[in-house]
């Protein structure tokens, strides 16, 4: 171990540290991530990249005949343009020249462009050159390149020529790993010699002093060498995050804008929130942030189950469950009171000639209890006793599509993994069960079919009022340190109506309403008043298409209305119901909302 007691050793350490700092400070005196680029170009890179593009119409492309060995041919999706499709070839390279010959067929007349370049390489969001050498390129045996070309991804050698549909082109070229020349410093890295000189000299003097300062602890004060190393390492760690501030303004992994730097004086005024704003800015930009977050995520992943106040997360399967759905409600027996409350509401509707349906959407855990990590006491069905009591004793139809959903869950996901809502496929199954019951009373009602929709699969989540694709609300509640894109590991089935109805949306204090008017003359002339919670958002992909008019009143998450007050339907929406004069009233709630039905007739 170095004792730092001799001048030679101190000088050696100073020199090593100077070189290290000079390498770190390369962006000061050069462009294009110089050292990484040199390392990649001369040693680590193993492929040359050749792009061939047939420009003309949408269907223009080329076809490689038959792919030669050591060549990887791809037709990537990002390389599809309105005027044609390009092909990407990757050729293995080494320190020595290798010759490649290939043939390709032109599909449709067009302008062929052959681009000889290096592979794509980026550090953060900035690309840097990985240089590949090319020579002796020939097209149909006609020589085109005599001198050595040094190309990289953003600076390729391009050659274009016209070709006709069906032409077979023979392309040959030689390629190798880049052989580094001194002139490359100027050509690729715009090396500023003056700045480099300053960096080396200043670094040397700084480190000379620092090493001298540190060595004093051992030589004069006779301190522990272990502690000297410990302290140096600690202070290095302290300085690292500020050494390189990331200037990206978009944090891709977090799907959000990074906090910008706000100066101390803005518009000639003292910025009172400067400290907080600098904290926000630094938190988003310091060097090593991604690595630290990843480290924490790795440690968290050692934990099978992560839970917080809002939800629980299985780190192995990526299932997330809301707190409200995983815990057993142990209410006293209130079934008669519950039934009386709903019957009273039913009586009010009957008096006004409105048919009433109670539609109870199961909880996610009613379907996926086995995926709740570490839990032993999950109810098989939330509020099952109440549901069964209502099914048995109510004078109105109670629809609880648990069996249909269980059947459907064998084929595809009926609930999202990172959110508590059902998927559109799940909602479609629920819709079919509901319609089966309504059609008993209203046989003429049209029931939509899957053929009325364009279906597609997507890993993202769409289940609530705004109809945006999201990462999932449960994921958001937990604020997990994971890349959300990686967490979305499942594709869900979505439905887009071929003839989509755009609702009129009202989202103001005390009211959250969506109104649908079906322009289809074949739709049954029935008016529906739908009231309920968030599961209806996906149900509305289907339900409005069966009726002439449907108005949906959201009961929870309404501005200025508490959760309990939201269910006081009679007092709150009586006039709206009478004004609309619907034929059908559907109360569509989640199984965990059942206790709130005691509030239906309360003021």
């Amino acid at each position, binding site marked *: 171990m170095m004792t730092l007691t001799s001048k030679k050793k101190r000088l050696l350490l100073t020199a090593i540290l100077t070189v290290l700092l000079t390498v770190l400070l390369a962006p000061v005196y050069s462009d294009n991530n110089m050292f990484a680029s040199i390392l990649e170009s001369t040693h680590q890179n193993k492929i040359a990249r050749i792009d061939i593009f047939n420009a003309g119409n949408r269907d223009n492309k080329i076809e490689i005949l038959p792919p030669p060995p050591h060549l990887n041919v791809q037709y990537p999706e990002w390389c599809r343009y309105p005027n044609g499709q390009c092909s990407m070839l990757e050729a293995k390279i080494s320190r020595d020249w290798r010759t490649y010959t290939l043939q390709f067929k032109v599909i449709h007349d067009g302008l062929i462009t052959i681009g000889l370049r290096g592979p794509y390489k980026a550090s953060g969001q900035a690309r840097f050159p990985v240089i590949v050498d090319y020579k002796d390129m020939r097209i149909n045996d006609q020589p085109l390149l005599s001198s050595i070309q040094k190309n990289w991804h953003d600076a390729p050698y391009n050659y274009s020529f016209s070709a006709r549909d069906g032409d077979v082109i023979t392309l040959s070229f030689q390629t190798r790993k880049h052989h580094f020349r001194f002139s490359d410093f100027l050509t690729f890295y715009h090396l500023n010699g003056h700045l480099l000189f300053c960096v080396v000299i200043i670094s040397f003097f700084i480190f000379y002093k620092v090493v001298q300062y540190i060595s004093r602890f051992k030589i004069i*004060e006779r301190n522990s060498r272990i502690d000297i190393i410990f302290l140096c390492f600690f202070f290095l760690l302290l300085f690292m995050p500020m050494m390189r501030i990331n200037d990206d303004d978009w944090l891709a992994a977090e799907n959000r804008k990074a906090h910008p730097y706000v100066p101390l004086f803005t518009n000639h005024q003292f910025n009172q929130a400067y400290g907080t704003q600098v904290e926000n800015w630094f938190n988003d930009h310091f060097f090593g942030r991604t690595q630290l977050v990843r480290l924490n995520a790795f440690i968290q992943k050692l934990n099978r189950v992560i839970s917080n106040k809002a939800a629980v997360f299985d780190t192995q399967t990526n299932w997330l469950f809301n707190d409200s759905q995983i815990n057993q409600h142990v209410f006293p027996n209130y079934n008669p009171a519950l039934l009386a409350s709903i019957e009273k509401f039913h009586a009010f509707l009957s008096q006004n000639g409105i048919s009433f349906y109670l539609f109870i959407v199961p909880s996610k855990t009613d379907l996926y209890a086995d995926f709740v990590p570490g839990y032993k006491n999950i109810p098989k069905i939330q509020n099952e006793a109440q549901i069964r009591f209502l099914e048995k004793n109510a004078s109105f139809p109670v629809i609880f599509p648990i069996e249909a959903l269980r059947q459907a869950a064998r084929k595809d996901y009926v609930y999202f993994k990172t959110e508590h809502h059902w998927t559109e496929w799940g909602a479609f199954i629920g819709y079919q069960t509901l319609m089966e019951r309504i059609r008993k009373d209203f046989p003429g009602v049209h029931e939509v079919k899957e053929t009325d929709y364009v279906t597609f699969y997507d890993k993202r989540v769409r289940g609530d009022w705004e109809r945006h694709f999201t990462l999932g609300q449960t994921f958001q509640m937990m604020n997990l340190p994971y890349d959300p894109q990686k967490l979305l590991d499942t594709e869900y089935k979505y439905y887009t109506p071929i003839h989509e109805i755009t609702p009129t949306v009202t989202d103001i204090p005390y009211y959250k309403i969506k109104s649908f008017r079906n322009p289809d003359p074949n739709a049954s002339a029935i008016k529906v008043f739908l009231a309920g919670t968030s599961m209806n958002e996906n149900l509305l992909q289907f339900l409005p298409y069966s009726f002439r008019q449907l108005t949906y009143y959201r009961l929870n998450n309404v501005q200025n209305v508490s959760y309990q007050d939201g269910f006081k339907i009679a007092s709150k929406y009586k006039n709206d119901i009478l004004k609309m004069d619907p034929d059908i009233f559907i109360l569509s709630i989640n199984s965990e909302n059942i206790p709130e039905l005691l509030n239906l007739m309360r003021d």
Partner: protein
Amino acid sequence: MLFSSMTFIFLFMPIVCVVYLLAKKSLQNMLLLIASLLFYAWGGPNYLAIMLLNILINYTGALYIDRSVSHKKTFLTLTVVVNLGILIYFKYCSFLIDNINGLLSYDLPLLEVIMPIGISFYTFQAMSYVIDVYRGEVKAQRNIYKLALYISLFPQLVAGPIVKYHDVNHQIDNRTVNFRKVTYGVKRFIIGLSKKILLANTLGAVADKIFSQPVEQFDSATAWIGAVAYALQLFYDFSGYSDMAIGLGYIFGFKFLENFNYPYISRSITEFWRRWHISLSTWFKEYLYIPLGGNRISPVRTYVNLFIVFLATGIWHGASWNFVVWGLWNGLFIIMERITNWHKKDGPIIRFIQHGYTIFIFLIGWVMFRATNMTYAWDYLKNMFGFISKHTLSHDFIYYVDHIELLAFGVAVLCSMPLFTKMLTLSDKHVILKSLINAWLIVLFILSTALIASSTYNPFIYFRF
């Protein structure tokens, strides 16, 4: 600014430390003062004015006390009243108005006063200075910058320990910074940071899950888990902050007195208060209990004095009846122990019972301390003892304590006992042990900062198109 923020650890601290350590000795106080004022003004510069006013009042007050021959007491009273007046205005005003309205059926409007961070700590520090000057223990500081440094010194500004002037006045003028102090300071800082981030925050999440629910939603066992989790959270949070403060003090050459000494191994509440928040209890002892007569007048007067001290201790902790009751709860048992003297008895079984009794009493106390109001505290306590039989929700154990939290629980319980103290002492003589401890401290530091960095990770739910 918080010690446990990225900005403090990776921006403020390295710059201040390096500039301070490389600066000439004559500039070090000025540098520390500037750093302290910047540290305090970081979150909102408005509060800085209150602290500067506090410095000015105490500087002037002490000078008058020092110079005056016949009116020393008047100037002291005036300064203390102004200090307490400012503290009461910012900390207790809303509480007092609320209670006056409740008691006398008035409708006085509540003042929307935001409490400046650390006001309880720096007010008490300032008062210790003027009282010391009044007692003649120290001379009044003629250099306002040095007094400002004492009151605003950033390592102990926000959460203590409450440094008494007579403990540090010599260090302000004359202190040495050497390698050993810096190394110890850094190690102590890392230990404090790990206590706060890895243990207190993890256990705090457990306590939050339980205390944020209505008491009907969890059973007795869970209520006890919540109380223990909170007791451990509070200890590691507070002692972690004190460790960081003491560590930073060492880096800058100061030696602050210890604030915690394994309080949870106490065998009586009297002993507990000798080990818990030592700087506060000694402050009250020196500046309130002894001036009231301490235990020198009569037994009854001693009990009254203790009652007053613990009433004040409770009030100091916060403007809420919970804290008042909590203070009196502790005072009550200290008086009982003084009357019975049973805590002085010894023997293996008695010792075991004494430990059990102490843990029981402080756990009950912490429930009052944590609860948002006394009604909740009372219901929580009833739940702990099985007096709430109807529970509306049955949670699974793993909801409250996941595996990492369980690990933190175990580590927290072990580290609340002096099991590893000898290891640190031994490490000075054993190279391998020292290397291992140093490496472990670096690992703890990286783990703590990884957790802090993750708290800044905040994915946006909607996909941008």
